[in-house]
């Protein structure tokens, strides 16, 4: 752009100088930007009606000889033209107002691009500069806080893993709620981790029907459009970027008991169990002392070598003897943490081209080590693209990318014993990581090395496992080849060579994503899950291949103030997935291959096919850059549905009005630009968990010894069809006070109908349900983004962006029941999805230490049926609420307690540029909502011997008369889950801080560089929330798990352009 500007102004200057000048007066002055007050360099000044003219210098000053009565025409790219009559003046200073439209970004929309001002839908674009401020290996983790209306999970800390996104709330229940990813115009089926974030030029989130209707089939949950960098004509630009950082946990650990506290609490739990069984406190104490050894796994695991378990605790106080000394105190989580988890990221890219051919090439290498030992993610990526104008009416181009990713992770999750995040976090602190001898010293092997303790000497938790040792000795590696092709050919266009057909074009696009994964899983033969089978090797080979092929006819032409765009197209989408699996046991230690393993124990293969055919059209009309209307239509046939219900019709209508262009607004000088938008449309969703949702099948994977076998696994419903989402969007977008303030505010109302649900059937029919289109749901929301350009001077720029959004989800209709229960949560008509429905605790009985619950009775009518209020909520009989310690009554007395949905969420960030320094930060926040923290629950009500407690257990009831927050500690107490585990999900997080310094050009020029910038960033720095250890962003439904903790990165980098 700038090059073009320079070119133009030079030409004008030459023209101006070549004109013989009449003997007139000399006018001098400066041309300044109206909003910033800075000089406008190379602005052109022309005498109206002549070829006479000049240009401003680098500081915006000019001098020109003109007739006294001349009219001067000031123009510069990006500014509105001005005409000024000289009227004999010799000094004329001009303030030029920016041309808002000219400065506006183009947004990437379905099957094309559009100027943002003309766009009738709702879309938010994020540029590469903003994305690149985040140190992420997966682009999905960079979107949080940048786009209003997008809610993000934190994503696993496993390097390379994705975060999940929801655009404008839950769109569905059983079908997918995740947005469609489109890369360079074609829906993307590759892995997000395969995309190098540095290759991304622009990321646009399409939020409403008007924006995403042309992705009708799969656009219901919004669309994330990723555009990769393309070449531009001009000199070749070579960029090199390097970044090196260190990673650590971004969330603190749960506060767990110390070794001494753990023993005391265990003793007390044993005592209480006997006390509750009817024994006196004294007898119960004696029982606790005698039972401690069996509970904790015998003397082998007693770290207090100067006492036996039986004598360790003083029954009078419940404290361990003061002179008891622990021989070891090892911290499993600490030993499992890679304290040197580094991350290095390098990329090199070249862009350039001529008027006819433009090219880009880039390569990257990422080496990302996880904070859990042995875990890592490597990516080698390469991308190249060419755009070529064959003739004036024919353009072809495309890009190819390939990346190889290689990751090590752990094969375990959730409450599997092998899952380090479960077993190590809740391993009682008395158990050592390293094997001890009878004196409590490290038992060394013949090489003098410490050995892992596999708990085979009676450790009640995770016997035969040592999650540290197993991480080293087991192996879980995924290697993936990811290739993407995007290509196009375009015929016709608006070049005059098209003659009468000017504006008509036809294009074909072909894009494919191919992903091959080879996964090796190896379980060592000595310990852990492999021990019983002398080890196991599993091999998986999966292949995903999808392609999209479309043909689009387009007519795009301006007739005076009228602009018409019409488009029609056809598209074919084909997805194929194949899976191959083999398993052998009896491994040769350390060889991760099948051949040396002795027993073939399993093998399997299968394939999935999924296809969509679509026809679509679009009609745009706008008049005088003031009024815009757009209509789209699309029909899709999905192979997921029975042929008679296969085709869905989707459409949208949208309009926008640039009210600031109206005459009556001209007087409002403080309004730079103001646009109103309104759209309505209907989109579809076929993304059920099954590719063959309507069919009834005998599943063939049930052989009985040598006899082939099959069972019926699904019920047929030919009526299953598209889930539909209708959405209204009303928006206002404006720039005010000479670009001091940018505002975008939008209101939406979305209704999902024909929602795909498993229509519940009684388990006694052999099935729990069948796929059916029955439910409906509503999301209403408001989002606003405010950007303040506090200071915009040449050497000091400072701006802040604040965005906030609120979504309100309401379930409108379900199946013939009005509630679907899933664990502690319900999907209930009239309430937000996944509302917690649980018993409520009512404190602790000071006399008994038992947990009290609220219980109630329902108001019943004469026939004994429970009465409901007008919202369908059961009515509690007034006065029937009381406290009880009877868990059966409490189980029957559940309360609706709220959901994960935040009351309000948003982000705040600023950018500051001072001379050669730049500084930016981004924070996010979320207010309200609840999380059911199961790791916390299971560490407050310990069920398994050898698990430890959260420190909050110290607030427990101990003796009759205590007013305690936490009931008496028990092992496997059988207390029911209540609102005790619902934790306020509000948080404030510092997502990133970046400080950079760009070396002055006069230095870098000498070194042959165009620019050199060094920077330091902190990413995912910290989060403040209610409960230490809890990840409030674990998922959207309000749960948590024993999962890989999110990580923070502090890094240094440099960015060079040649």
């Amino acid at each position, binding site marked *: 752009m700038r090059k073009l500007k320079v070119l133009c102004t030079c030409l004008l200057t030459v023209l101006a100088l070549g004109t013989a000048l009449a003997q007139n007066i000399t006018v001098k002055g400066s041309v300044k930007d109206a909003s910033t007050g800075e000089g406008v360099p190379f602005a052109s000044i022309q005498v109206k009606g002549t070829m006479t003219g000049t240009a401003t210098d680098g500081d915006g000053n000019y001098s020109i000889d003109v007739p006294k009565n001349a009219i001067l025409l000031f123009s510069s790219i990006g500014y509105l033209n001005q005409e000024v009559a000289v009227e004999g003046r010799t000094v004329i200073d001009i303030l030029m107002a920016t041309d808002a439209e000219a400065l506006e970004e183009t947004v990437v929309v379905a099957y094309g691009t559009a100027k943002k001002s003309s766009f009738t839908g709702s879309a938010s674009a994020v540029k590469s500069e903003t994305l690149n401020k985040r140190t992420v290996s997966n682009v999905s983790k960079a979107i949080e806080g940048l786009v209003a209306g997008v809610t993000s999970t934190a994503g696993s800390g496993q390097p390379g893993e994705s975060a999940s996104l929801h655009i404008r709330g839950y769109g569905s229940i059983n079908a997918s709620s995740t947005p469609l990813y489109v890369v360079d115009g074609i829906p993307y089926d590759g892995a997000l981790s395969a995309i190098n974030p540095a290759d991304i030029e622009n990321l646009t989130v399409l939020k409403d029907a008007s924006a995403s209707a042309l992705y009708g089939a799969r656009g219901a949950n919004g669309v994330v459009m990723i555009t990769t960098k393309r070449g531009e004509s001009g000199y070749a630009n070579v960029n090199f970027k390097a970044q090196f950082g260190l990673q650590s946990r971004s969330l603190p650990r749960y506060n767990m008991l110390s070794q001494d506290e753990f023993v005391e609490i265990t003793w007390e739990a044993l005592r209480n169990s006997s006390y509750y069984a009817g024994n006196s406190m004294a007898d119960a104490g004696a029982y606790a002392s005698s039972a401690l050894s069996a509970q904790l796994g015998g003397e082998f695991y007693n770290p207090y070598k100067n006492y036996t378990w039986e004598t360790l605790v003083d029954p009078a106080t419940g404290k361990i003897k003061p002179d008891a000394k622990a021989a070891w105190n090892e911290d499993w989580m600490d030993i499992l943490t890679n304290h040197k988890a580094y991350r290095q990221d390098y990329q090199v890219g070249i862009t350039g081209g001529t008027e006819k051919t433009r090219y880009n090439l880039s390569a990257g290498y990422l080496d990302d080590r996880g904070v859990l030992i042995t875990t890592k993610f490597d990516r080698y990526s390469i991308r190249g693209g060419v755009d070529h104008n064959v003739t004036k009416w024919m353009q072809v181009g495309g890009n190819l990318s390939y990346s190889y990713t290689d990751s090590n992770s752990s094969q375990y999750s959730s409450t599997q014993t092998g899952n380090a995040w479960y077993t190590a976090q809740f391993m009682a602190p008395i158990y050592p990581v390293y094997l001890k001898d009878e004196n409590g010293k490290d038992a060394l092997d013949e090489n003098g090395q410490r050995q892992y303790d596999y708990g085979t000497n009676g450790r009640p938790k995770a016997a035969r496992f040592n999650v540290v040792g197993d991480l080293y000795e087991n192996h879980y590696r995924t290697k993936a080849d990811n290739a993407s092709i995007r290509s196009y050919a375009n015929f016709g266009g608006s070049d005059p060579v098209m003659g009468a057909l000017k504006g008509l074009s036809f294009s074909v696009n072909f894009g494919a994503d191919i992903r091959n994964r080879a996964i090796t899983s190896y379980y060592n033969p000595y310990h852990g899950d492999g021990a019983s089978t002398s080890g196991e090797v599993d091999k998986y080979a999966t292949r995903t291949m999808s392609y999209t092929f479309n043909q689009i006819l387009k007519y795009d032409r301006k007739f005076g103030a009228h602009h018409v765009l019409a488009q029609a197209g056809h598209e074919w989408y084909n997805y194929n997935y194949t899976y191959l699996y083999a398993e052998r046991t009896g491994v040769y230690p350390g060889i991760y291959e099948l051949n040396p393993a002795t027993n073939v124990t399993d093998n399997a293969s299968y394939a999935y096919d999924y296809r969509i055919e679509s026809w679509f059209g679009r009609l745009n009309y706008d008049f005088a850059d003031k009024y815009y209307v757009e209509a789209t239509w699309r029909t899709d046939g999905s192979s997921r549905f029975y042929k008679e219900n296969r085709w869905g019709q989707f459409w949208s209508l949208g309009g926008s009005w640039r009210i600031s262009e109206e005459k009556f607004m001209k007087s409002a000088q403080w309004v730079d630009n103001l646009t109103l938008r309104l759209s309505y449309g209907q989109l579809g969703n076929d993304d059920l968990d099954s590719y063959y949702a309507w069919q009834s099948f005998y599943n063939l994977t049930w052989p009985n010894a040598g006899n082939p076998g099959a069972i019926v696994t699904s019920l047929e419903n030919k009526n299953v069809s598209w889930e539909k989402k209708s959405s209204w969007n009303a928006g206002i977008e404006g720039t005010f006070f000479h670009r001091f303030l940018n505002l975008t505010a939008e209101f939406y109302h979305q209704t999902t109908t024909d929602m795909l649900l498993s229509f519940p059937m009684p388990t006694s029919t052999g099935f729990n349900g069948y796929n059916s289109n029955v439910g409906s749901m509503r999301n209403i929301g408001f989002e606003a983004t405010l950007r303040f350009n506090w200071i915009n001077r040449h050497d000091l720029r400072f701006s802040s962006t604040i965005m906030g959004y609120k979504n309100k989800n309401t379930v409108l209709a379900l199946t013939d029941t009005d509630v679907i229960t899933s664990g502690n949560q319900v999907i209930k008509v009239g309430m937000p999805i996944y509302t917690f429905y649980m018993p409520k605790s009512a404190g602790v009985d000071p006399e008994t230490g038992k947990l009290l619950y609220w219980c109630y009775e329902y108001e019943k009518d004469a026939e004994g049926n429970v009465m409901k209020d007008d919202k369908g909520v059961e009515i509690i009989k007034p006065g029937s609420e009381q406290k009880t310690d009877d868990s*059966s009554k409490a189980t029957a007395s559940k309360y609706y307690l709220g959901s994960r949905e935040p009351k309000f969420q948003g982000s705040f960030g600023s950018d500051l540029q001072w001379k050669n320094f730049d500084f930016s930060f981004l924070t996010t926040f979320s207010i309200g909502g609840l999380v059911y923290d199961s790791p916390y629950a299971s560490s407050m009500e310990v069920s*398994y011997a050898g698990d430890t407690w959260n420190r909050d257990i110290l607030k427990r009831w101990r003796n009759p008369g205590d007013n305690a927050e936490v009931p008496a500690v028990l092992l496997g107490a059988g207390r029911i889950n209540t609102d005790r585990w619902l934790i306020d999900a509000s948080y404030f997080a510092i997502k990133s801080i970046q400080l950079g310094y760009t070396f002055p050009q006069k230095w870098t020029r000498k070194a042959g560089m165009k620019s050199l910038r060094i920077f330091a960033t902190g990413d995912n720095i910290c989060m403040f929330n209610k409960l230490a250890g809890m990840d409030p962003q674990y998922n959207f439904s309000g749960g948590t798990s024993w999962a890989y903790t999110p990580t923070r990165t502090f890094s240094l980098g440099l960015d060079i352009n040649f």
Partner: protein
Amino acid sequence: MKKIIIAFFAFCLLTLASSCNQELLDTVPTTAVSGDFMLENTEGGFMALNGTLRFVWRWGQTTTGNYHQCFGIQSYALMGDLMGEDMVMAAQGSGWFWYDYNYNVKSRFSSTTWRPYDAWNYYYTIISQVNYILAAQETMAGSKAEVDYIMGNAFALRAYAYHYLAMTFARSYIGHEDRLSVPIYTEPTSAGTEGKPRSTNREVYAQAMSDINQAVTLLNGKSQMHVSHIDQYVANGIKARIALYMGDYKTAYEAAAVAVKGGTIDFDKNFHYNDATHSSVLWGAEVITSQGTTNPQFLVHMDIDYNAGSGYGGRARKCCSTELYDQIADSDLRKTAWWSWQVLADGKTYGYQQWKFQFANKAYQGCGKVDDTTTGADHIFMRAAEMQLIMAECQARLGNEGQAKDLLNELMKTRQSDYDCSGKSGLQLGKLTTDKTGSLLEEIILQRRIELWGEYGRIYDIKRLRQGFERTLAMGHPQADLNVLATNNCHLSDPESFDWVLTIPQKELDANPYMVQNPLGSYASDGYGDDPALNK
């Protein structure tokens, strides 16, 4: 210009003509075939039958968690044994079965990972699978013998499932004939099939009896094609179990008398219940390598040699209660072959470690190592000795004490050479299983408890015998278990208690408006979980 236009439209037409064949949108999976097609002939019929039988013993198919305690028939037998008094679970271990043992599962009915959902889903999945097969009885192409064989198996499986459902989700048949049992489905399920109300025990058992009679007729004279299949002996064995539970001793005797011919009843001290081809086995499952498993199977829960004592069998030892053990004669070969005194790692003993059930692929007993858990780990569902015991019990109850004693003596002679029950007489049983009467019936039941320990589900017997029982520290039950039982206020001494009646899972209650929950505690109350039959 003209050329451009021609080229332009030619290209448009060419690519638009590539619009695709509509049939490509009809996709089908690679691991399944359409339901209509499967049952057209006996070839598919056998596949459906074998698939159902695999479901009968395949682990982890019925719940969304806690898979390791869900492995079909043997898991419900182990659960039933652990709910009684003869089997001690010395420690919690990983927790599998511990909650059954402690009567701590009924309140977990709203979860799909616990026993109420698991058992309900298990039996009703079997029923729905065989209902599809049975619906094709008239239309299935193939020889009559093959069709009959398939249908006989299906009828027998349905009878089996209703019998076990009623034993699990209702109180005893005897004394509660007209109380609520479970809903009956005999038609194939389709999308939208509605739930049915609970039938009474009498109705459920009428269905079970009718089904098993059909099975016996259809299977008569046909040889067993695989040990997992139901032949005439197994069908009669199931019939004998059902009739015995109903108190129809004549029918039970007659059926057992046929069934017993399907296997041998002599004692083989080297048989460790890991080989379904053993001559004493009527019905079992053959486990081949690719279908075997490492953890979630019966023997892993039983054999302490799995993983050197750190497997489930070692950490949650299954022991014989001292009360039962002490009643075994010292000359009884089973006493030493099946149990031994063991000092555990913590220096304590909780009872008598079992050796009855062991993996085949290990060097020797007590070696601490199992070489391979995926073979030599067959499942065993029915043995001839059980039939002999049923015959003896029924003869005694029918007044033929002489024949009863002969039958018992015949069984016992290879187990205890000096055995003689001829001095015993009478049918009295104590109010509690620990109250001794010295009757012949008590002796037969005692031998049943010893012989079938670990394989039949003691609680099902306690129910039908209308007795109560108790657990004590002296019997070997751990204090931790007694503490939970006391805290949970169980009434195991009362045969009218609902403690051993599982709760109906929430999923069923949610989708079946006719469903009525069982009491959550020991007794019905007017609030939640009432048995409305009590209010009639």
